[in-house]
């Protein structure tokens, strides 16, 4: 009996001892809340999680190690939090990505050259002129729609932050079903939920259709990616649009709205009209720095149906800008071009 007990104790001690000796606490080394610590944490977070290093190295020569060398000497413990914020913000701008943000209580660093450097191609006044007074168009789930005088259906989707229900979309389709063509306006749509964009695009496919691919990182290396997996659109259960469609875009068509355009661009009845989209083809994740600042970054890259990245935007089928003269005449040139395309095809 004593031998048996002795053996049992040996087993217990063996387990405890071997656990103590062969393992350690599972923890992470991002705890230093100094200026240097926050700088290092920010650089490491991006280095280990950001998903477009190789693509952007090809596009414009992004070198994240070089960014470290360039900004590291500027970090001093005597600097203010505002000065640190400015340096980290400038580092984030090197990624040229609207999905990369640094959030502090006093400011949000956001890269805006993807739309700041280009024409707006959109105007509230022009939209109001088109839709008319509140009672002159319908609106549900942030989607405004009406039948234009030339029997073209117009659907304005300013955001995908709200996902329309099946009933809402059926009502919209039913209302517009007599129209000769459809205009879907996603200009100035900054995105939202991918599922909302998918549901909207599902109104335009009649069979399961691979419209994009997505992958994710599997490790800290810049190229540790999973295999691209298809995003397959299932047809909307109910009324589906079978006639011609024009999708209106501008530089502020971003993120989930960019994905909507990406889903639609290869469908045979669809024409993209307007300006190049803003891009934003990386599903963003959120993390943080020891001082509490939030960090957002692109984590899961998405590609279109031909495995082309749309991170830097999608070129339209018909490139149109609204000129100053058009604004002065209150003419939405992009919309008018779409109407002409739809009328010509009828």
């Amino acid at each position, binding site marked *: 009996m004593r031998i048996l007990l002795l053996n049992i104790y040996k087993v217990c001690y063996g387990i405890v001892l*071997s656990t103590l000796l062969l393992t350690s*606490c599972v923890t992470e080394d991002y705890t230093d809340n100094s200026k240097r610590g926050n700088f290092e944490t920010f650089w490491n*977070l991006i280095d280990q999680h950001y998903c477009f290093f190789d693509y952007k190295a090809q596009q414009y020569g992004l070198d994240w190690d070089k960014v470290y060398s360039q900004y590291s000497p500027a970090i001093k413990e005597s600097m203010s939090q505002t000065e640190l914020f400015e340096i980290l913000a400038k580092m984030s701008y090197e990624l040229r990505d609207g999905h990369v943000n640094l959030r502090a209580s006093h400011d949000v660093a956001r890269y805006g050259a993807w739309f700041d450097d280009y024409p707006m191609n959109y105007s509230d006044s022009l939209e109001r002129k088109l839709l008319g007074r509140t009672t002159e168009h319908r609106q549900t789930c942030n989607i405004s729609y009406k039948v234009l005088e030339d029997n073209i259906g117009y659907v304005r989707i300013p955001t995908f932050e709200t996902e329309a229900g099946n009933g809402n979309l059926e009502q919209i389709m039913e209302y517009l079903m007599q129209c000769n063509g459809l205009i879907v306006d996603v200009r100035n749509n900054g995105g939202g939920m991918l599922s909302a964009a998918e549901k909207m695009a599902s109104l335009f496919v009649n069979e399961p259709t691979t419209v994009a691919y997505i992958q994710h990182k*599997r490790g800290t290396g810049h190229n540790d990616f999973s295999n691209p997996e298809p995003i397959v659109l299932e047809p909307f259960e109910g009324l589906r649009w079978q006639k011609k469609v024009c999708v209106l875009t501008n530089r502020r068509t971003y993120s989930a709205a960019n994905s909507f355009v990406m889903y639609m661009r290869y469908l045979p009845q669809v024409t993209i009209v307007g300006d190049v989209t803003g891009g934003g083809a990386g599903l963003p*994740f959120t993390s*943080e720095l*020891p001082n509490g600042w939030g960090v957002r970054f692109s984590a899961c890259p998405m590609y279109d149906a031909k495995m082309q990245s749309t991170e830097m935007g999608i070129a339209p089928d018909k490139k149109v800008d609204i000129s100053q003269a058009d604004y002065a005449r209150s003419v939405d040139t992009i919309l008018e071009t779409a109407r002409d395309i739809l009328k010509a095809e009828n």
Partner: protein
Amino acid sequence: MRNLLRTLFISLLFLPVTAQAQQDAETKLNVSVDSAAILTQTPLSGTLHEVRHDHLLGFGSNNVLDTYLSPLCYKGFSVSYLYRTQSRLSRKSPSWRIMGNYAVDFSSLDAPADNVTEWDGNLAAALILHRRFRILPSLSASIGPMFEAIAGFTYNTRNGNNPAQGRVALNGGVSGVAEWHFKLFGKHFSSHIQVDMPILGLMFSPNYGQSYYEIFSLKQYDHNICLNHAFKAPQMRLLATLHIPMWRHIDLVCGYHADIRQSHVNNLKAHRWQHQFVIGITRSLLMF
């Protein structure tokens, strides 16, 4: 946590010594009809056996890391309810006992900068089979296998596409209990130390940068059921309690509860270090 494990190791090391010092109590304990005597290896009666129910409330601290959500450790207050029931496995094998451990806990945690909150909650159920050995009349030790199922979540109130981490795990491991019965102020006290140590298990985890959109909306899986073992990420649950007799079959229980959960799978690190003061009651029933 190393200090905790070291304390546990030293406790186990000195158990026989402590028991030797308590030999004075053995005779009296063997003749008293209470839980202390009944819990020894030889039952008082061939038909009577004890069924014990522990109800414990825990209050303490929690330290949570999940690198899928944040590289920082969140700390805060945690509450839990523990229910432990144990009885003889069968009449033919009185030295084998079966134990069920059930726990639910909830924590509200703050980031180091105190500007973001995480909520953490868990449900756990464990089935344990113990072989009891009487080392001394006042001291017994039990050891045996354990199987547990855990489901839980950590929700970060700031994050966007990675707002939460879901946890589901099935573990197998080793469990041990040391029970020491002693008399103080004319009453029979007992102290218990239970250590549950998962050795090998399966757990759910998203991959390093995988979004829940891919898992749940697109139904795309990528190594999401992972093997977790003690030599990669040691885990342990320790419950040390002092049982103070109050009424005939009811003891007041107070003690310390540590729940150390860790994982390192898919290049994601996670830990949940929970330390609590527990208080409650033990109800002992004599059954035929």
